[in-house]
C-alpha cells in the first residue's frame, strides 16, 4: 500500500530527488511511530495561559491506532487548547496523503534537524500545513508547527527519553495563540474592585498559551479497551 502510494507520489513530484528524500524521511519516522499500536502513560500537565489559573495536574494519556486519543485528568477537568492536544505526533502524520517539502536545516535545543513542510493533499483536511523538525539520525520529531483551519497554529516541542525508541516523547510543550477572555462582572457576580486581579491578568497578558505535558510510566502495546476513549 505504502509502496504503491510512494511510487505514484514519486512520479508526480517535480522536485524529484529532494522530495523523495524528505518523503522517505517522514515515512521512516512514521514507520517508527507505527510500532506503537497503543500506549498509556502517566503525565503531569501544566497549563500556562494568561487567563487561566490552574495547578499542575496529574493526567493519564491513552492512545490507540489509528487516532484514538484520550487525556484524563485526575479530578476530571482539564483545560486544553481547542483541538490542540489531540493533535499528537501520531495523528499529525497518520494521514498518508501529503506532500513533503524540504525547507532547510535548523537546530532545536542544540540538536540539528531537517526542516520538512508537510502539505496535506486532501482539500478538506483540518490541517493546512505542518512543519516538522526532524532529528534525522534518531528519526525523532523534535518540533512540529501545525496550522489548522479552525483553531489557529500550534507549536509542539518534544523532548525524548527512555521511550525514544518508540518515538514517544518524555515532554511535550504545546504553544498556541490565545484570544482575550473577559466576562462581565454582572454574570460572575463580582462586586469587588478587581484592581489587583486586573494587574495580575495584565501581567500575564499578551503571552502565548502553553500546555506542558511530562510523560512517565509508558505502557506500550499492552492493549487498551475502546471504552477508555468514550467520553
Amino acid at each position, binding site marked *: 500500500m505504502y509502496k504503491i502510494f510512494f511510487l505514484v507520489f514519486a512520479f508526480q513530484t517535480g522536485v524529484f530527488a529532494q522530495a523523495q528524500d524528505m518523503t522517505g524521511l517522514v515515512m521512516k519516522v512514521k514507520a517508527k511511530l507505527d510500532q506503537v499500536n497503543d500506549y498509556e502513560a502517566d503525565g503531569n500537565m501544566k497549563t500556562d495561559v494568561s487567563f487561566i489559573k490552574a495547578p499542575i495536574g496529574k493526567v493519564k494519556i491513552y492512545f490507540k491506532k489509528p487516532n484514538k486519543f484520550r487525556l484524563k*485528568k485526575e479530578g476530571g*477537568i*482539564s483545560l486544553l487548547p481547542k483541538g490542540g492536544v489531540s493533535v499528537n505526533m501520531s495523528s499529525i502524520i497518520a494521514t498518508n496523503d501529503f506532500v513533503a517539502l524540504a525547507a532547510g536545516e535548523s537546530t532545536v535545543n542544540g540538536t540539528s534537524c531537517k526542516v520538512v513542510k508537510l502539505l496535506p493533499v486532501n482539500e478538506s483536511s483540518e490541517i493546512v500545513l505542518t512543519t516538522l523538525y526532524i532529528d534525522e539520525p534518531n528519526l525523532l520529531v523534535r518540533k512540529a508547527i501545525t496550522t489548522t483551519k479552525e483553531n489557529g497554529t500550534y507549536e509542539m516541542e518534544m523532548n525524548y527519553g527512555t521511550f525514544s525508541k518508540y518515538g514517544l516523547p518524555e515532554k511535550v510543550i504545546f504553544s498556541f495563540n490565545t484570544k482575550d477572555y473577559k466576562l462581565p462582572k454582572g454574570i460572575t457576580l463580582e462586586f*469587588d474592585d478587581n484592581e489587583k486581579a486586573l494587574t495580575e491578568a495584565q501581567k500575564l497578558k499578551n503571552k502565548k498559551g502553553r500546555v506542558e505535558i511530562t510523560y512517565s510510566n509508558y505502557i506500550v502495546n499492552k492493549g487498551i479497551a475502546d471504552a477508555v476513549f468514550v467520553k
Partner: protein
Amino acid sequence: MLTLIQIELYKIFRRPRTYIAFGAIAALILIIQFGLKVDGKSYADFLMKDVGGTMEIDGNIINGYLICYIMLQLLLVHVPLLVALIAADMISGEANMGTLRLLLSKPYSRTELLIAKFLAATVYTIMLLIWLAILALFVSMWIFGVGDMFLMKSSYVVLISQNDVFWRYAGAFVFAALAMVTVAALGFLLSIFAENSIGPIVATMSIIVFFTILSTLNIPIFNVLKPYLFTTHLISWKEFFDLKVNDANEAIIGSIQNPQRIITSALVLLLHIVGFVGSAIFIFNKKDILS
C-alpha cells in the same frame, strides 16, 4: 446568662416562622439540584460558551463543588432576608407581642438580655448556614460527585484541584457565617427602635439592597466608598476560591490569591458586629419601655 440564652433559643425554635427560612433554603436548593441533575449538560454548555473560544474544557464541570459555589452565589444574596426575618424581630417582635415589658421586669440586666438575644440570633444564623452547607455542599457532593472545580471570574478562569477544594468551602462557610451574623447584628440593632417586626425587617433589607447596589455599581465616584460599605465585604468568601500563581503561571495548590482581603473583610465585619450590637446595648439601656 446561660438560662437566658437557652430561653431565647427555645423561643426562636418554637416559632413556626423560624422554619420558613430552613424550608425556603431547602426548597430552593433542591429545585436547583433537580434542574441541574436533569439538564446540567446544557447549563454547563451555557457556562462554558465564552471560554470555549480558544480553550476547550475536557471533563464534566458540573460536579458537587461547582454546584455549591453557584448556589452560594445565588443564595447568599437572599439569605440576609431570612436572617433579618428572625434577627430584626428579636426585640421589636417582643414589643409587638407585649412580652417585652414582662421580660424586662425580670431580674436580668438589659445588657445581659440583649447579649443573650444576639447570641441566640447568631446561633440561628449559624444553623441556617450549616443547613445551607449540608444541602448545598454535602447533598450536591453526594448527588453530583466531586472533582476539580472550574470557576469563571470576570477576567480569568480558575481551576482548583479536587483535593484542594473542601477546605476552601470550610473557610467560605465560616466567612459566610460571619457575614450573615453582621446582617443579624444590623437587624438586631434596628429591632430595638420599632414595636413591630415588619419595619426593622424591611429596613434591614433596604439597607443591604441599597449598599449592595452601591457596591455593585462600577462608577468611579462610588468606588471610593466601596471599601467602607460592609456589603462589599459580605461576599469576600469568594476570595477562598482564587489561587495564587507562581512566576511560571502555575496555580499554587493550597494558596489564596488575596488572603489579606479575607482578613480585612473579616475585621471590617467584626467591627460592624461590635458596632451594631454595642450601639444596640447602649441605646436600649436608655430606652423607656412603653410598649
